[in-house]
């Protein structure tokens, strides 16, 4: 049900975008909506992160995944069991940028005769990594639409992203290849990886069982965003100059639709992207922010060495030694256990 709902939802979004084009709501879709979406995204993400940050961390609870710092001669696993802030930064870097924990993934096999075995399973790690990195590169590459001149860094990313295309003879007669834009790997990889993640959710029974609409919907949305982008770039060959005029007008806060017509596909693309931005802060996509705040990963494992303070350390009642001795004094004396007060 949640799967079908998500398909209906993304289809409806495309329908809305097409209807918008038909009803000439271009200004709304290309100007009002992007501003609103960006504002929602920025404020929403900030709100969520601030809300998490405002909750205290009462206990120091890193999940230790290696040898702790102890006796001098015992070799410490500084990264998986961080003993300093620098080590935590290294752990967080590996976690956030290389998905360290997911790299550990194994697959349980229940074999005949009741034997349980564990095999290596790196597919989720690989495609997860490809998905996120290509998404990041796609986003950075798109920044060229909001800067004039385009900063060197963004040019460099775009250059690297189209690297494999260079020197390749392009197919097609009549000099068609001259006008064909360079193929950006990131977009294709993004689509492929998102498709993998989607199919994995469909095919693996356990993952299908736990999937909610909020898992299907963003994946489908991202797949469609990638598809519409690729279609615009390679099939419909949208007027990039006109698009840049529009995006620069947005970036300079002098919004205006360009005189030149822009393909309907652009409007579909932009409506989907804006939906993603608006949806983002209210969804699981906030793992982008949350992963930085995960107390099992971002704390130093030094709670025996340095006292961690709990701001709400509760006042509780204790059973004191004198109460204890009052209960058992006679037996203690009889058993030869020293007491504070003789009977």
């Amino acid at each position, binding site marked *: *049900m949640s799967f079908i709902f998500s398909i209906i939802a993304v289809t409806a979004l495309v329908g809305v975008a097409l209807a918008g084009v038909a009803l000439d709501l271009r200004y709304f879709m290309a100007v009002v909506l992007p501003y609103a979406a960006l504002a929602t995204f920025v404020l929403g993400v900030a709100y969520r992160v601030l*809300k*998490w940050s405002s*909750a205290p*961390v*009462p*206990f*120091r*609870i890193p*999940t*230790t*995944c*290696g*040898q*702790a710092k102890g*006796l001098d*001669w*015992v070799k410490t696993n500084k990264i998986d069991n961080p003993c300093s802030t620098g080590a935590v930064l290294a752990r967080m870097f590996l976690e956030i940028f290389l998905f360290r*924990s*997911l790299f550990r*993934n*194994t697959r*349980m096999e*229940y074999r005949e005769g*009741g034997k*349980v075995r*564990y095999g290596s399973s790196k597919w*989720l790690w690989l495609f997860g990594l490809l998905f996120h990195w290509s998404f990041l590169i796609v986003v950075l590459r798109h920044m060229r639409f909001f800067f004039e001149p385009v900063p060197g860094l963004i040019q460099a990313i775009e250059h690297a992203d189209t690297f494999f295309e260079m020197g390749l003879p392009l197919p097609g007669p009549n000099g068609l290849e001259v006008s064909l834009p360079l193929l950006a790997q990131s977009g294709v990889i993004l689509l492929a990886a998102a498709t993998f993640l989607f199919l994995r959710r469909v095919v693996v029974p*356990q*993952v299908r*069982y*736990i999937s*909610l*609409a*909020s*898992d299907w919907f963003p994946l489908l949305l991202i797949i469609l965003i990638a598809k519409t982008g690729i279609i615009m770039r390679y099939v419909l060959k949208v007027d990039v100059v006109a698009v840049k005029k529009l995006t620069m007008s947005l970036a300079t806060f002098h919004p205006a639709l360009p005189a030149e017509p822009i393909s309907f596909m652009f409007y579909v693309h932009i409506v989907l992207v804006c939906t993603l931005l608006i949806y983002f802060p209210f969804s*699981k996509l*906030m793992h982008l922010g*949350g992963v930085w705040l*995960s*107390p*099992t990963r971002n704390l130093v494992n030094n*709670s*025996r*060495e*340095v006292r*961690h303070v*709990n701001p709400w*350390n*509760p006042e509780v009642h*204790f*059973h004191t030694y004198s109460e204890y*001795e009052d*209960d*058992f004094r006679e037996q*203690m004396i009889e*058993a*030869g*256990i*020293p007491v504070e007060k003789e009977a």
Partner: protein
Amino acid sequence: MATQTPKPQEILTTLGHQPPSENWMDTKPEFRPGMYCHPVKIASLEGMGGKYAREWAPAEPDWKLPADWKGIVKEGLKDRLNRFRSFQVFMDICVRCGACADKCHFFIGTGDPKNMPVLRAELIRSVYRGEFKTAGKILGKLAGGRKLTEEVIKEWFYYFFQCTECRRCSVFCPYGIDTAEITIIAREIINLLGLQIDWIGTPVNACYHIGNHLGLKPHTFKENIEYLLSDVEENVGITIEPTFNRKGAEILFVTPSGDVFADPGIFTCMGYLILFEHLGLDYTWSTYASEGGNFGFFTNNETMKRLNYKMYAESKRLGVKWILGGECGHMWRVVHQYMDTMNGPADHLEVPKNPLTGTVFANARSTKMVHVTEFTADCIKHNKLKLDPSRNDHYTVTWHDSCNTSRGMGFLEEPRFVLNSVCNNFVEMPDTTIREQTFCCGSGSGLNAGENMEQRMRGGLPRANAVRYVHEKHGVNLLGNICAIDRASLKPLMDYWVPEVAVAGLSELVANALIMEGENARSTNLRGEEINDLREEAGLPPIDFPDPDEEGGGEEGDE
């Protein structure tokens, strides 16, 4: 109504991991004998000031929840979202990638999809969404939200007391989502309704009022240790006279009370006693702080603090310099990650320093509490122990890393160093089942009761499976560990799955290998078993021990 635990083969042949076709929100847990724990006794709950103590039974339809139970749960949930960043973040950021799904020993052993850590967390996340989040309130099931009902409470009780807080899933989670943390908080909330299991509630009450989980009163506690010492006298030939509640000792020693009570923990306890005697350590036991473990940790953080308080309080009263702790898993997670925060700073103590080696335990600079295994390792490293590891030659040992010391501390190499120093035959289980990936005994976090034996045997299946692997491959016949719950629970687990393998705490193996001044021929181990019988079983030639009845017997050890 004794419940029959199914035979190992029955479990193995019926086990499957395919989820059912209906949505998980539409399935209910079945309270089948053997798969859940008995409710807490009224007196135990009330003894700790717990509310809504009553007679009730999980298998009955009416749980007699308090009138405003819904308000209590919602308020409890909201309160903890505000107090624990971990809880809030973990409620919000799971992407349900499923990497954790097959990492849980309960999922592997039961095939129940709600034992997949992701789904265990969704049991509470769905209510969080359905009751607190706009989308969940409006869209309900479609947004993964559901309303709080009595059925939900029953489901929480069933599954949050079918999680041992072992943190294995959290090792694999790309965001470090820790189901232990979620279970800890879920149990706090369930407890608000007077719902608790007896195996947790009664030890907690006993520990608070009497000093230890087992409810051993001061004189009984002392007698128990003296009883162990008479065995030591017989099997080792030495007399040990430890002190209790002695002011002015240098060190206070605290260990789980299980160590003075039940086989095979008692042999570990004999191990401590022999080790300290060997070193001539100036230490004392306490009958007041006679519990290292902390079942309050399985209740709520306030109770954990109330029980833990005694260690520092007693160390202050006795005027010791620092505290030495015995072998225990969750005890060490509490000591390492919670104690100083809850009941510190322990300014009345000194930074621990090994009186024999001069080693300063800088890693325990603030808590002032040292693990007996790191202490032993330090002594061995400085050649302070006279050891004959060949005395353990009849054992082929494998090492069970306890969940808490592995994933809540990082205590991996110290025990291995000690083990390698006191025995000659040590083989590791496969990498995916040890160290940070170690599998739980299946009975942690207060689930080592008697009535839930099927649950425990299923939960321990992955651990036992790895032991069976090294048993078949390398002839392993002993499973070593540093955890009192392991000692209590791995024994029945091995008896059930791999009966050829015995269970022992590390200090027992240390003491077997220790050459004591004035010892006897050591023709038996600490368990009183004849060494030559054990050697014969292991296919080793017998040792020519001097006849104990002959004059002078008990002077020299074997050569």
